């Protein structure tokens, strides 16, 4: 089980058209829409990687590369300092 947690100072804001990840310390701001928004929302709700993957598989049963896509997105968030 891979626990996912936003870095200290990072807040996630939900809006009707998507979400915003904001780092209070650095001022970095990242807009998330669509699937990325959904993933960020689940991270914010404390879901681990396996639970997120399970939710994604329910919504996108035809997609073959979901796990790889999720790993790539998590890696990107870590590189940007949004995830610990």
């Amino acid at each position, binding site marked *: 089980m891979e626990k996912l947690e936003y870095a200290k100072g990072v807040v996630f804001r939900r*809006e009707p*058209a*998507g979400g*915003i990840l904001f780092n209070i310390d650095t*001022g970095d701001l990242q*807009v*998330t*829409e669509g699937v990325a928004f959904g993933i960020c929302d689940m991270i914010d709700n404390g879901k681990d990687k396996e639970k997120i993957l399970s939710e994604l598989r329910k919504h996108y049963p035809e997609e073959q590369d979901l796990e790889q896509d999720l790993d790539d997105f998590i890696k990107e968030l870590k590189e940007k300092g949004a995830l610990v």
Partner: protein
Amino acid sequence: MSSQLPTLGVLYINPAGGCNLHCRHCWVNEGSFTGELLSLENWKELLSQSVAEGCSYLKLTGGEPLLYHDIVPLYRYSASLFPRIVIETNGTLQPEGLWEAFAEKKPFHVSVSLDNAEARLHDEFRGQRGAWEKTVEFAEKLVKNNISNQIIMSVSTAQRQPVVDMIKLAQQIGTGTLKINFITPSGRGKSDNFFDKNPIEDIIEFFTWIDKETPRGVLPSVPAALLPVNRLKNHGYCPVRNLMGVLPDGTFSLCGVAFSRKEMAWGKFPAISVHDAWENSPVYKMIRSSLPHDIEGVCHRCIHRDSCIGQCVVNNMETGGAVTSPDILCQRAYEAGLFPETRLIER
């Protein structure tokens, strides 16, 4: 160069000593310009020095930049130095050799000012009969020559029909995007500006209508905090901390604001070099030391503070009295309970 000194990234130059139109809202060319114009050789030297400072983005603006007597050789020289050249023009002038110079090296982007789909109303607003036809012809030529282009429409009301009509006209012309500028209470715009004329509730409703009911190519000049998330990715910000403006006589300014606010001018080229002005101008120093951290009001608490920096310093000076004053729309929205809570943070 001090390690604290930001890069001079963007240069706005106003080469012509005025404008051939007399627009109701102009904040730059409010008074007549009486100084001596910089020569072509002076401009060339100034541009070269700017590039040596690291500058890669040049905006030719005004007044009307195409009114400058040596605009074609100035463009050619600029194009040999700068990767990105943006031109803001009223589109009523086509100096000899301009399109050939554009064909040799296309500008990065050209914006033309066109305020109404009805010729009479545009001409009244711009103070010259026949302006509309010339500007439409210029806009069509930009499209024909495959030059990245935009129409800028200036409005003082939140009426929808003029926008709908302009969208149709822009589509007929084939224009890339339609930017909507809201007339600010500066220069001649003081008497008929968008901010004082419309209640904040109507303004927010107008923005919402633009977002939901108009094509994606319609770009309202709205502070980031008042835009929905899906409009943020391509949102442009004023590069105020990395920006240097130069007036027709070589006076260093913050953008073109020193046309009307002399306290925002410092020094003159060529007596003062670009490097010296960028490093030592009290105007740029004041901007660097106060923005974005000292910005006041709702802007201080906004999550867009460090990129938006109050949307427009000139407008904030006019409406709030200081470069650190908050953006008037965001502040009014906040006071009316219409500012999105999701964009606020405790600092």
